């Protein structure tokens, strides 16, 4: 079965205000797409809407993934199908260790395959620990990470690396990276970029949502789209990202007659 993500004429609003206005986009396994846009263009709304955040209202359209319209599914069902969202602002969950949570999540996502789970439906502890340690080593993450409370007191860079670690463990088919480079210094962007590029292969499709092109130095997309006022206005290749790097968003805004958004990111 095809694991492509196909978005058709999607409309999303937040608190009654339309943000995404008839967006079309298709991401195949093995492809890397960059969706670039200025603040307020609707980037995070799209990311949260695709994953099923209850505060983002889907007005119309469809999102087909693995042959199903996922808009009717809860977030965990979407995850089980192989959709992953790396959050711009990962939520802290005090008191819950990364390892405990991740064991539950990985067990849930792999449950349907029925491989090596014990009576609780959980992956055997030894097997899980071994795999986690291996992935942490590959991503250059310290062992102590696993015992820390999820995103609680993490630095910006640590939060993003924890997201990438979860991506690596959950092995999704399509991963959406929402502003994964935001709030990071140059070194952290490099580490995160290199970590993601290690995971890229024919099984993984990636949609990188970003304001700045700097993460793209490490993960070179084949497709670049520009999001403006809730819609994709231009699609192309690497040259589009280079154009934005050189000129910023103003010429594009001018071309499409769209004013700069005053109320920040939505």
């Amino acid at each position, binding site marked *: 079965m095809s694991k492509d993500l196909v978005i058709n004429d999607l409309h999303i609003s937040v608190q009654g205000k339309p943000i995404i206005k008839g967006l079309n986009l298709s991401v195949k396994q093995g492809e890397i797409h960059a969706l670039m846009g200025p603040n307020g263009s609707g980037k995070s709304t799209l990311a949260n809407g695709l*994953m*099923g*955040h*209850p*505060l983002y209202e889907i007005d119309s359209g469809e999102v087909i993934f693995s042959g199903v319209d996922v808009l009717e599914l*809860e*977030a*965990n069902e*979407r*995850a*089980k199908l192989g959709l*992953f*969202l790396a*959050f711009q602002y*990962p*939520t802290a*969950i*005090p*008191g*819950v260790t990364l390892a*405990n*949570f*991740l064991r*539950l*999540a*990985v067990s*849930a*996502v792999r449950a349907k395959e029925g491989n090596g789970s014990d009576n609780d439906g959980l992956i055997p502890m030894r097997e899980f620990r071994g795999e986690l340690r291996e992935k942490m080593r590959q991503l250059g993450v310290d062992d102590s990470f696993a015992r820390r*409370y999820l995103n609680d007191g993490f630095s910006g860079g640590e939060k993003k690396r924890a997201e990438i670690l*979860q991506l690596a463990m*959950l092995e999704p088919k399509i991963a959406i990276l929402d502003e994964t480079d935001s709030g990071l210094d140059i070194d952290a962007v490099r580490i995160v970029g290199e970590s993601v590029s290690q995971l890229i292969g024919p099984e993984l499709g990636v949609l990188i949502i970003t304001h700045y092109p700097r993460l793209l130095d490490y993960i070179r997309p084949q497709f670049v789209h520009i999001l403006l006022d809730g819609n994709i206005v231009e699609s192309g290749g690497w040259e589009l990202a280079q154009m934005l790097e050189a000129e910023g968003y103003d010429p594009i805004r001018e071309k499409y007659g769209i004013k700069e958004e005053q109320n920040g990111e939505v």
Partner: protein
Amino acid sequence: MQNGHFSKEFLQKIAATEPQWMREKRLEAYKVYESLPMPHTTEDDVWRRTVDMRTQDYWRRTRRYLRGLEVEKYHPSLPTNGGSPSETVGAGLPSPYAETAGVLVQVDGQRQHASDSEELKKKGVYFADLHTALQEQPELLRDYFMNKAVTLETGLKSGNIAQHNKFDALHGAFWQGGYLLHVPKGVSVEMPLRVYTRMSEADQADLSHTLIIAEEGSQVVVLEENASTTPDASGLHNGAVEIFAGQNANVTYVQVQRWNRYVWNFASHRAMVARDAHLCWVSATFGGRLNKLNQAAVLEGAGCTAQMLGLAFTDARQHLDVSTAQEHVSPHTSSDLLYRTVLKDRAQTAWGGNIYVYPEANYTDAYQKNDNLLLSERAHADTLPGLEIQAHEVRCTHGATAGKIDADQVFYLMSRGVSYAQAEKLIVDGFFEPVMERIPLESVREELSTSIARKLE
């Protein structure tokens, strides 16, 4: 077993074989009980937030008495010294009481089973049900029993205790069951002692009394578990706990309450902490229809410390009303209280906590925190932290929070594949973690985790 009533005649019967001073003490308590009206939820300030969710409309609660409670309906029993543990009680208890220095089992106020290890005998530790203790250790009881900690006198330092004494008086008059633990000077008991208190038959009253005396330099851990053996037999628990941590003693006391949802639960717990002693006190509440708990630690001696940990999970129409007091009497004392409560369904809770620092108690460190996590729209938590400070050199902090389960946390967890139920459980476990991680006993943490999981099923 003989069922009785809360009457003077029955009281005489209970006290018939007791020393005269105890008989008089009971009669005196009965007089106090008779003289006091039932608490009124409008007129009595400390009862203002106590509400029986089964019979009362929350928003009209201030107009009502404790309407659903008819004390007369419940039966105290005549104490007997029962023999071997009954089959029904044995079920659900760890067998053969692994890793304990001594075990006491009591059902409906009757001693069912007692065993103490060679260790206890060798070290001279006294551990027995209170009726036996009254025969064997009359001097200790006369000195301590409802004399120094939970008493019927008013004008005590924490006013909430003084105003609570309708039920303390009932307890003083009709107490039956419970135990005395006496740890002699310098004795360290390695394994924990375990006490299982059960209510089984309908309409029983359990009035058990805990008296722990840890002498100078001693060390002991007591794990107490109160539970119903059936899910729906109504009952009344009217208990008292008195703890004396002597000079430089180290006492850990854990009480886990798992009555069923038809048990009224009224209790006063009070610990006296002497110079350089350390008390670790864990109070966990899962059961009860209406719970009214007064818990106070009195830091009497210089240099002593008390850690008070509370963990509660209420659901259905349970009500939990807890008043805590940290009373700093002497200088260089420290207390640290952390109470965390999870509420589900239509549960209602009220927590009122006070730190009292008396004029001589300079260099006090006192901390107090109450946090509430609401899993449903209809649950309600009141939280009232308070300070009363009369000394100059004091460090005190207090705080309280109450919040609904965070939608962003749930979404974050679910986006990684876990179900709503799993996400909720993770968040609840995480919420209790700061309390759990301070509980020094693995077996207790495991038992509490099981009770928490059961509440979420």
